[in-house]
């Protein structure tokens, strides 16, 4: 006990003595936590620092919404927080545009943009540039759900055999959750989607806060169907050595989500910043996207691992609600949705 105590005290002492060393921050990139920790951030940093005389610093302490809030607060206080921001999703496009946070960039400054699928170029002002995209779909545990009689339409999902079998995410707190809400609005119209949600309620085990919570529940076997991504089988094969978790396509659709990056207004390094965006779109970096982000790269020339190519599903009919319609109605949609789901 005594030795334990002494070690602990020593540890605490060491911690208190060695304060963090201050570093200067010439080129700052705000992004979300997973992009920096396991995503391609460190490769980007190395590649960029090899060709540019800068010290790239990724700041990623939370999800992208919190980071965007931080950027906004800094702007309001007249501070330049970052040079580049990575991680704005399509649903936020129009609202982000109104805040005028990002510099509009001529396409010729980002040569690799030419290779990107034009369907992903959703920002008319050209200031936000896509770097990856993916599809929200349901994913099921093939050991607990019959594959032969699998749901193929939205209506199938209302069937009594799926009672308490579905885990969803909260559209207010998570990107997949919002995608599914928008997807139902696309399918049933406004206000028809509310009826669908009313009928779906008995089959929902829970509406978890975020994707992580939902996937935890799914992995723990609490319910066999979860709202997730169409790349999950590939993830399951590459990370767990089994294709047990399979993608369920409804109406042959998947809700398409595109993720964007942009140069922050007021940066003093505009040239570097556009070079940086170009680097993220290069085939070397884009080839890292599949197995670090579990997304499809924006640049189709990127190399995909065989198992990703084999197991990641591309839904034949991608669905998207326009950013303008979202900006117009999101407040009301979320409110109406909450009223349907509350107290269930």
């Amino acid at each position, binding site marked *: 006990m005594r030795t334990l105590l002494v070690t602990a005290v020593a540890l605490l002492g060491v911690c208190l003595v060695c304060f963090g060393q201050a570093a200067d921050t010439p080129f700052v990139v705000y992004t979300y936590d997973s992009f*920096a920790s*396991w995503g391609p951030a460190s490769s980007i940093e*190395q590649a960029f620092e090899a060709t540019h005389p800068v010290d790239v610093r990724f700041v990623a*302490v*939370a999800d992208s919404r919190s980071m965007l*809030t931080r950027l906004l607060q800094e702007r309001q206080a007249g501070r330049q927080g970052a040079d580049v921001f990575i991680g704005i999703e399509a649903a936020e496009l129009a609202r982000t545009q109104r805040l005028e946070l990002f510099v509009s960039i001529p396409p010729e400054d980002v040569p690799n943009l030419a290779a990107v699928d034009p369907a992903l170029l959703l920002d008319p002002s050209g200031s936000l540039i896509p770097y990856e995209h993916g599809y929200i779909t349901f994913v099921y545990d093939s050991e607990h759900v019959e594959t032969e009689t699998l749901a193929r339409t939205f209506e199938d999902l209302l069937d009594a055999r799926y009672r308490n079998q579905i885990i969803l995410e909260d559209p*207010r707190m998570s990107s997949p959750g919002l995608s599914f809400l928008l997807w139902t609005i696309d399918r049933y119209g406004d206000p028809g989607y509310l009826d669908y949600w009313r009928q779906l309620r008995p089959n929902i085990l829970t509406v978890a806060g975020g994707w992580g919570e939902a996937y935890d529940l799914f992995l*723990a076997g609490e319910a066999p169907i979860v709202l997730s991504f169409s790349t999950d089988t590939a993830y399951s094969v590459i990370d767990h050595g089994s294709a047990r978790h399979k993608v369920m396509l409804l109406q042959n659709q998947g809700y398409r989500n595109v993720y964007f990056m942009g140069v922050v207004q007021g940066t003093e390094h505009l040239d570097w910043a556009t070079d940086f965006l170009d680097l993220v779109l290069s085939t070397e970096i884009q080839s890292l996207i599949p197995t670090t982000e579990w997304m499809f790269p924006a640049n189709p020339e990127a190399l995909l691992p065989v198992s990703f190519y084999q197991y990641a599903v591309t839904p034949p009919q991608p669905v998207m609600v326009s950013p303008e319609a979202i900006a117009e109605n999101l407040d009301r949609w979320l409110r109406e949705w909450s009223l349907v789901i*509350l107290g269930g």
Partner: protein
Amino acid sequence: MNVRRARRGLLILLPLLFLAAAFYYPLLRLFREGLTENGRFTFRFLTDVFVDPYFLRVIVFTAKQAFWSTLLSIAIGLPWAYVFTKYRFPFKSTLRSLTIVPFVLPSITVAVGFILFFGNNGYLNQALMFVFGLESPPIRILYSLPGIVLAHAFYNAPLVARMVSAQWEQIDPAYTESARSLGAGRVRRFAGITLPMLMPGLMTSSMLVFIFSFLSFPIVLALGGAQFATLEVEIYTQFIVLFNEPTGAALAILEIILSLLFTFGYILLEGRFTRPVGGRIHHATEPLFRWSWGRGLLWLFIVACAILYIGPLGSVLADSFTRSWAGHTVLTLDWYAAIFRPEYNALIGAAPLRAVQNSLQTAAGAMLGALVVGVPIAFAVARGRFRGRRLFDTVVMAPLGVSSVALGAALLAAFLRPPLQLGHGWLAIVLAHTILAYPFVIRAVVPILEGLDRGPVEAARSLGATGWRAFLDIELPLIRRGLLVGAVLAFAISLGEMSATIMLARPEWKTMPLVVNDLRAARSFGGASAMSCLLMAITAIAFVVIERFGARIFGGTKWSKSA
């Protein structure tokens, strides 16, 4: 006399100045946002909230779940305090230090533990189904109100236990002994003597638990689901998702007003209950491990508690050592290897070991800050004779009642501008944590101060001791339990805090809970569990160390062995 008063005034003025700059000024911005439109004062955003039936339902549910959570936390915490006061058993002081560990765990860790253990497919249900040959899981508490209430009790019962047992140990056993000699039975003695004397500690902790549960949000979503969203979820939605700052601020203002009303109500009630109790009491304890039929209920409680705590935490531990591969669950050290790998995240500056160091440094700073700010205010509250003392007591508790989302944003906004201009950095985080933590020091110290016998201090003063001397030699040792509990809680609050940290931290100042969050966001579920276990181990060691040293610093051995 005047010099002394002036000196005392200065001692209380400094913490108040700090609060004004670091808390009330940011809060003012929040109020301005929620109460003005185009520069003009308006109640519109606030009344909009009140006429909306949706918000009313959310508020009613928020209060309801907080009420049940408080009740269950007391039901668990009170017997727990009893066990720690009346019995002795091996490793008692270490176990006492460890009781506060659940309080600091990130909501993710607790959620994962609860899902793995109490889930419909969890270990508990699987065990029960196996033993009793059942077809379907017998315990379905998750994804409903009971799951939320149980998780809140998991977090908060230790708080009740700590605060109540600090009070219990101050009760002179002579009272109950004389009642016993007069023929009062066990129940009568408890209801008539012990319970009223425990009331201050019990009510303090109940109030803290209530406000905590009232403001809780990630755990409510994780274990209850969006069907059970609280007010805090709405604040998050308005601020972070919709950028609708006025409505978000209006909701935050409403939340703070409600919390302050609860606090004020409690402070009014507390005044009625405070009874003078002795200062330094020696309790005769009985050995716990001696079987008798009369102890059946006691052991039932202990076993239930063990299941409640060891179950979920053990499940997280098991999760950190296993992974599924090709349909099998295999034992592995991969997750620990991953979080200790030096190249992991080295470029980002948030390697896990760095996060350990960050967490400890920040918590140590916040603990010191909370003591420096909290103790003078506690003295002012307990000893001050001025008008509006109760109102003052309520207002200094305000940080407890502020939405963490709104506070994070407000602090960030304030720290980016003069006069504070700290930006993102260690000091900003420490200040934020100090603000969140000092109310605990006040609440831990005030009931004990109020119950203190002033006799010895007055005797010392009449013998010529200076006020400072009397404070150091007599009062400080007498209130050391309160100080220690306050310090430990402040440390714990800082270790577990996430919302403000997320807003203020630079990557090199990421704390352990943020890394747990990261790991899971990056699909490293096992890594998140491994990091959670590391967090538990580190906090456990830190608490044991703090309490050992704290007891020595505050003169623990001086009084408890004698008298």
